[in-house]
Every structure is written in C-alpha cells, then in structure tokens.
C-alpha cells in the first residue's frame, strides 16, 4: 500500500544490521518506516544506541541499508552516492576542515557545485551573516569557541541550499545558556530557509520545544510519531511516557467496558477514573497501567471525598512550582505532584502530611506495556 506521492523523505521498511566482532549482529535499525514532510522540523529522539545516528547516515548516504528504501521527493536515492544527494549534514563533531579558514569551509560546498566565484563569495557572506559570524571569515576553525564552530558547521551545510539538513546532536557540546540560544536560532533558521530539518537529540526538552513532529525511537524501532503535544499528552507506550517528561505510573483494573471505560485505581478506596482505551483490546477485570503527568496530579487534605490516600515524603521548592513526592500504600514508587506556587508561596502542605491524590479523567492515559 503506497501512500500517494508526497514530497519529503520517505523511509520504507528500513533495516540496518551491523556485524560486530564482539557483539555479533546488531540491528541498529529494525523495520523503520516513516515520512518526513517537506519544510518540517522533524526530530529523532531516543536513548543512546537506539539508532538515531544510523538513520541519519542512511539518509545522507554514508551507510548502505541492509534492507529498505530511502525516497527523496519520490526519487529513490537508496543507491545514490552521498555527494549526489541534495542533503547536507551538521556533524556531531562538526567535522570542520582544520586546514581551511571559516570562509573556505563555508565556500567548500559551493565550489563542489561549481558555483561562479563571485556568487559564491556573496553566498558565503550571506551565510555568515545568517549565523552571526560576519568578520570571522579569515579565522582558522581551530581558533573558534564551541558555539562558533557549531555555527560554522551550520553555515557550511546551509550554503549549498540543500533540500534537507541533517543535524546530529549539534547542541550537545554546548553549555546550557549557549544551547538555549542556539535552539532558538536553529528554529528561526529553519523557518527562514524553509529547509527540511532532521534533528537528532536525546534531550526530550529540546525535542519538545523545537520540533514540528517527533519520532521516539528505542532499540532500532520507532515507537511513536507525533507533534510534541501528542507525544507528551498521549504517549502510547510506557517507554515513551517515561522517556518524555516525568510520569506517574499507576496499576489499575478495568471495571466497566465502554467509551470511555471505567478503571479502578489501586486497591484501597475504590477511586475510579474514566479514560478512552480504544487502542487496547481490554476486557473487564484486566490489569492496565495508567500514566498521569505530575502537573495534573492534585493533592487535597485527607478526609473527605474519593482519591488515593498517601503520605508526603519530600517537598522540593522550585521557584515557580513545588514538587511533592507522595508515598501510596501498595505502589512501588512514590507519586509526584507538581503544583504551581501562588504569589510565590508554596501551598500549605508539609512533609509527613496525610493527603488525598486525585486527577481529572482527561489527565489519564492508558498504556500498553
């Protein structure tokens, strides 16, 4: 079943197996299929070793897939050499040419395309302005700071006007502040140039703040693709919920089938919530896991009304919010509630207090394990 022709990158049934002396066979990509739209900021997110770099290298042409195809605007480029693909890469290590100046680095791709020298000169100036490096033309790349090198790498990759820019954890070497600044700049560049960005990171916050869509990967597989909000609010698997943001996991029993179904949480109290579980084939009485974000987990003084009873173990003040870790009988891990501070004051709940935990129905996500 082929999708109708759509511009962008199509990855079809991609498998990449590495044979390693020590570990034997490693399936770095395990049947990955995805579609990255044109002009989209698409992020590959996942823990170390899940195959993000391998997928980028297959798109760039550095790695020949064991199986599967890569399509670029409906042109099959699987067997095309890297230098023929309209795809450029910002390498994790930057890979700037140490024997060339900043300007020579940026001009390299233009020279390879045999762009007329005067036009190339203008383009280099334009690119350096775009990344705020005007005046650095004649510096050797070894004399630049990490952030400057990163921007040269960006300018170099953007100069030949590729259709697709691949970025392999380009911000991981930068300190926190520079990183925040570069995140905004990258997003701006993507919007200004209209180039498709495929961005790799293992930082979930970075992925959520920058991307149009995110693919969450684990062990060579894509678990979920969606907008940051979809992924954050409706994770389909426990791994996704756990990897992206903090999550409370609660065992529950399906008590009444339907749309929405009714679940009984925990063993004590008979606290029930309603949630949609249509993606799961569940019967009455079956065990499921519910995921609830800490900011949608509410605490009330113990006593009246329904809810899970627990005892506050620790209170962590965060300025804008306060985090409460609450021990609930029968649950392995304490639950976390994140409550916004009003007028910069933490709510009047102290360590050791007995509380009642509730959450609204629409805060609940039913997971397949």
């Amino acid at each position, binding site marked *: 079943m082929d999708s109708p022709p759509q511009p962008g990158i199509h990855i079809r049934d991609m498998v990449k197996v590495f044979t390693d002396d020590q570990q034997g066979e490693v399936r770095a990509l395990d049947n990955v299929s995805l579609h990255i739209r044109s002009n989209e900021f698409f992020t590959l997110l996942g823990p170390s070793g899940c195959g993000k770099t391998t997928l980028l290298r297959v798109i760039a042409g550095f790695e020949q897939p064991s199986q599967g195809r890569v399509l670029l605007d409906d042109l099959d480029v699987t067997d095309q050499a890297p*230098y023929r693909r309209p795809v450029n890469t910002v390498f994790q290590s930057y*890979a700037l040419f*140490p024997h060339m100046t900043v300007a020579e680095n940026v001009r390299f791709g233009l020279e390879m395309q045999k762009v007329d020298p005067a036009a190339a000169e203008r383009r280099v100036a334009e690119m350096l302005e775009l990344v705020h490096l005007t005046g650095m033309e004649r510096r050797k790349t070894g004399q630049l700071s990490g952030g400057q090198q990163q921007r040269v790498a960006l300018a170099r990759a953007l100069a030949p006007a590729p259709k697709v820019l691949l970025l392999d954890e380009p911000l991981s070497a930068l300190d926190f502040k520079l990183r925040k600044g570069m995140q905004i700049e990258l997003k701006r560049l993507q919007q200004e140039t209209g180039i498709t960005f495929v961005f790799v990171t293992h930082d979930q916050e970075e992925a959520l703040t920058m991307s149009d869509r995110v693919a969450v990967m684990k062990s060579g597989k894509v678990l979920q693709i969606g907008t940051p909000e979809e992924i954050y609010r409706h994770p389909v698997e426990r791994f996704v919920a756990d990897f992206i943001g903090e999550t409370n996991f609660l065992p529950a029993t399906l008590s009444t089938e339907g749309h929405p179904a009714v679940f009984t949480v925990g063993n004590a109290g008979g606290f029930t919530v309603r949630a949609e579980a249509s993606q799961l084939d569940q019967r009455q009485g079956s065990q499921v896991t519910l995921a609830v974000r800490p900011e949608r987990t509410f605490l009330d003084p113990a006593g009246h009304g329904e809810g899970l009873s627990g005892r506050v173990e620790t209170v962590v003040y965060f300025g804008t919010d306060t985090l409460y870790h609450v021990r609930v009988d029968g649950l392995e891990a304490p639950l976390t509630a994140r409550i916004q501070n009003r007028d910069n004051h933490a709510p009047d709940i102290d360590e050791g207090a007995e509380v009642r935990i509730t959450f609204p129905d629409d805060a609940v996500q039913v997971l397949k394990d």
Partner: protein
Amino acid sequence: MLLDLPRRSPAVARLLLIGPGIAVIGLFMLIPLGLMAYVSFLDRGAYGGVVWDQHTVEAYTSFLFERNLDDSLTFNTDYLQIYLRSFLLSLSTTLIALLVGFPVALYMSLAPAKWRNLLVFLVTVPFWTNLLVRNYAWILLLRTNGLIDQWAAGLGLIGPGESVSILYTPWAITIGLTYSFMPFMVLPIYASLEKLDFRLVEAAYDLGATRLKALARVIVPLSLPGIAAGSILVFIPSLGSYVTPELLGGSKGLMIGNLIQLQFAASRNWPFGAALAFTLLAMVLIAMVLYLTRFRKLPE
C-alpha cells in the same frame, strides 16, 4: 656535599641529564665533521692524505673551475653536472616513491585496525636483507637476458635476443633507489593518514565532493606533513647514495656519492672529496631551511 649539588641546583641536574647525549653527539658527529671541514681547506698530499699546515681554498675552487697550465681559471661545469644529475635522479626517485607510496599508505590506513600492524611490518621487510643483496637482485632482474627481458620476450613485447636495456641507465638507478627508500616514504605518510579524522572525508562527500575532489582538497592537504617528511627521507639519502648508482648505473651513472668516493680512493684528493661533501651538505641545509619555513605552520 658534592653529591647533593644536582638536587639543590636544577641547572646542574639538567646538565647531568643531557651531558651524555651531548658528549656522544660531540664525539661521534661534530668532531669527525669538523675534521673533514678542516681537511677541505688543506692542500692534498702527493700520495693521498693531506698536508696539515698548507691552508688553501683550492678544493672549492676546483669544484667550479679548471686550473690551466698558466694558472688561469676556466669555468668548468663537469662537477655541477654530476650534482645536477644527482638532484634530478633523487627528485624523480622521490616523485615516483610518492606516487606509489601514497596509495599504499592510504590503503594501509583504511585497512581494518587489526591488519595495520602487520602491513607496517610487511613494508619494512625489504630492510631485513642487505642493501647490496637487494641491488644485485635488481641486476638479475634488469640485465640483458635477465628476468624482465625474458618476461617481455614471453609477452612478445620484444623480439628474441633483444633487450629492454634498462640496466646501466639512469632508469635503473631510479628504480633501485625508489625500491630501496620506499618504506621511508610510506611510513611517515601512513603515520599522518592514520591520525586523519575520516569524518572530515565524509563531510567533504556530504558537501558534494567526489572521491578525487575529497582526496585533493582534504586528504592530501591534511597529510602534507607526512608527505613532506617522507619526501625528505627519500630525497636526502638518494642524493648521497653510493651503492645503487655504483652497481646499477654503470660508467655514466656517476652520482655525488660515487664522485666523493672516487676522490678519497682512486684520485687520492682528500681535500676535494671533503669539499664535495660539504658543498652537498650546504645544499641540503639550504633545502631544509626552505622546507622548515614553508611547512612549519601547517596544522598537526
């Protein structure tokens, strides 16, 4: 008290540490060199050797001029020609060694890590046999009716009884020298290629460079220090080579090394031999200075 001195004075300690090295260099290098420099400014003895109290620059004069019977000087290019030929032969040796050695070094640096040490070892294998033996082997290969002639005849490239006639030509010298000094070219280039970050080559491909362009714009520039070191290590010993031109070059294949040897042996003109050697040394030093000022600023 006296034994305490190195500990209390770093200067003394330093002197004690580098002293032996300096003594060895002084004894076995500077003194003989100085002696030969002195000899080059002396008058020749009638039956070899020198007259120790007759100082003259005659040896250097006769490098460029011929002294006529009436004591006037005529410009003489005989020796300059031998120097020029030696330079050209060494240069072509270096170029051929580079053209052959660079791909070999590149291949070695791209081989799987576990094979590389074996490959380095294989490159050095020719050194295990004596230089003379290796040159005689080339005589067997190159001589009339030698192996190469037989192969060429077998392939029909030459008629029966004909010869490709390489032995005792400058070509034979170039072949012999290239073969002898090839490891000196391969190993330094390999050393700098092995350090090269091949992600830079990927970056070049990524930006649209073909293999050839990536080679010319990234690999070669970044291995220049190795190329330069290898070229020096081949060029300089070629310039002073003696055995190979002696055996493979025939009567017309005189190189600087043979000329110098001739002065100390058959011609019994020690001062002239010494002067020839120092003229060569001066030329090499000038070349080295030029090289250092050119390549010193290259990246690691």
